[in-house]
């Protein structure tokens, strides 16, 4: 018998009130604005909605956003796996420093995550003149947008993996090595399968954030339409042009992405849970 209190049914007026208050608050603060996006996008009819996607700048923004995510997410997944592995399975000097550094982007305004790259690579930055002489463009171009996005999304995969890997310990890896497995085989056949749901979960979150990032990218992109505007920046540009249908249509893409991510995340959690219970029933 488990002594921990299990959630009960709602049975008193007070608990009913609290639950209702929470639901109303969420509806006002999240539900209503989200609905507005779709309503506004469709306000001039479906044809106007479809028309707004004929804008070549919108397509350029979508392509750029997908490209940025396609590069930033795998890089951060690889880094997250490596960082979580070293933090969870080894003791070394500077471990807590590494942990703090991984968390830093979460507690820092994204604008700063963009600005630091300007300070390093911008025209007046440390390497600016050198890069200019070599004809390499980082700021106000794809590399800059990538750097900003990667910096902002660095913690998302690592954070998912560290607690799980720490809990699992390194014994299974040691067992694999004594059984003759090399490092790569151990990673592929033992380590990654053991954390696969958490890894997917982290990748999803990382992807959503990479596609939706505004602050850091806004500093680094230079807002060149059809060239360096990602989807969130494009939404802002359309809005400033008073093209509300266009802006909300593009925004509905981003909102749709958020909803798909959420559904996928929930499904993943269910899958993970059902595997866990299957594995735990004697």
């Amino acid at each position, binding site marked *: 018998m488990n002594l921990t209190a299990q959630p009960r049914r709602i049975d008193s007026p007070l608990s009913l009130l609290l639950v209702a208050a929470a639901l109303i608050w969420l509806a006002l603060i999240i539900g209503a604005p989200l609905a507005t996006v779709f309503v506004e996008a469709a306000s001039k009819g479906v044809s106007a909605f479809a028309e707004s996607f004929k804008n070549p700048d919108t397509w350029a923004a979508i392509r750029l956003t997908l490209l940025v995510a396609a590069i930033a997410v795998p890089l951060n997944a690889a880094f997250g796996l490596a960082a979580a592995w070293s933090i969870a399975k080894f003791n070394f000097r500077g471990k807590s420093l590494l942990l703090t550094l991984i968390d830093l982007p979460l507690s820092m305004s994204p604008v700063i995550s963009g600005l630091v790259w300007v300070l390093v690579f911008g025209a007046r930055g440390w390497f600016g003149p050198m890069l200019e002489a070599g004809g390499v463009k980082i700021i106000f171009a794809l590399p800059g947008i990538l750097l900003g996005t990667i910096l902002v999304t660095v913690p998302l995969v690592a954070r998912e993996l560290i607690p799980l890997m720490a809990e699992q310990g390194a014994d299974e890896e040691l067992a694999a090595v*004594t059984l003759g497995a090399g490092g790569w085989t151990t990673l592929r056949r033992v380590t990654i399968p*053991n954390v696969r749901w958490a890894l997917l979960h982290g990748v999803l979150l990382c992807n959503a954030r990479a596609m939706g990032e505004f602050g850091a990218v806004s500093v680094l992109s230079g807002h060149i339409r059809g060239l360096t505007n990602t989807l969130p920046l494009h939404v802002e540009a359309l809005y400033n042009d008073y093209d509300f249908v266009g802006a909300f249509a593009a925004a509905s893409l981003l909102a749709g992405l958020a909803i798909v991510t959420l559904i996928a995340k929930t499904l993943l959690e269910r899958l993970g849970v059902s595997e866990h219970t299957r594995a735990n029933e004697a």
Partner: protein
Amino acid sequence: MPLTVDGIFKQFGRFPALVGVSLEARDGEFLTLLGPSGSGKTTLLRVLAGLDKPDHGRVYLNGTDFLAQSARERRVGLVFQQYALFRHMTVAKNIAFGLDVRPRATRPSRAAIKARVDELLALARIDGLGGRYPAQLSGGQRQRVAVARALAVEPQLLLLDEPFGALDTKVRKELRAELRRIHDAAGVTTILVTHDQEEAMALADRVVLMNKGRIEQIGTPEELEREPASPFVFEFLGETNRAPCEVAGGVARFEGFSAPAMGADRRAGKGMGLFRPSDTFLDASPSAEGLPVRLVSISGRGAVRLIECQALSGHRFTAELPEHLAAAFEAGGRARLTARRAMVDLDHPVPDKAEAATVAPLRERA
């Protein structure tokens, strides 16, 4: 395959984990490394497995330099304390792992791997569990899978780290016999780490008793029982009665009785005498020789009774008597105590009063 361990030193920071450990194991021998926690037994096992590098010393298996090889190259079967089964693989996949990960050139065929897995499932008596996941198994079954997985690669050496630690007593005894049977069937040189002296004595061809990073004694269970090399060995291997004594010429003189001294220490002097409850006798007749004691309690079932008694000095003793002899005594009665043989510890100062004396005779002080 003979194993030679020669002068191993290993230090963790300022803690000396192994201080010049040397031993040899014969081909197919079953050794147990026994000792209290911190005695270095697990460190020695990790050195043999290749998970720790010693600071000094050499290890040879079959004439090859073991320390020059990585953990991966050594072909050592290692069974972890918590088994470390691959949680996302079935039992069959777990056992097959060591064969599956071989480079293509040396990897057996699928059919050969399957045959080997079936053979090991049968050897470990877990046939029919091949499709289960580790979390669906009992502790004892997991243990069997771990041993089968380690044996799959036909290891040159099988190492087990406290393999029964997480199991309850009944399963533990059953698996102990199973492990010995599997060892005898597989014929692999085996080294098992444990802190449980009963387990070590029951399983091993020879026991390696360790203390503070050194080997106190290596010998068959009988040798350790009969000729303990040191008071530490004597105390570690079983229940011990303690009383001050004076030893000279191979005889330990206690208050009220004497007993032949055990061990190789031939020095004379005052020390702490140690003797087993099973070597302790009680005689009810008041004219008998021995230390006068008062019987405090009698416990135990079956063929053996444990009789707790106390001397006037405050020292407490336990005597283990067969049921028919114990019937002559009852709690609160008096008797004379003698010991059949005793080990004498000359190196540790003997307290003037027994430890028990500080608790028992409060009335006398008041």
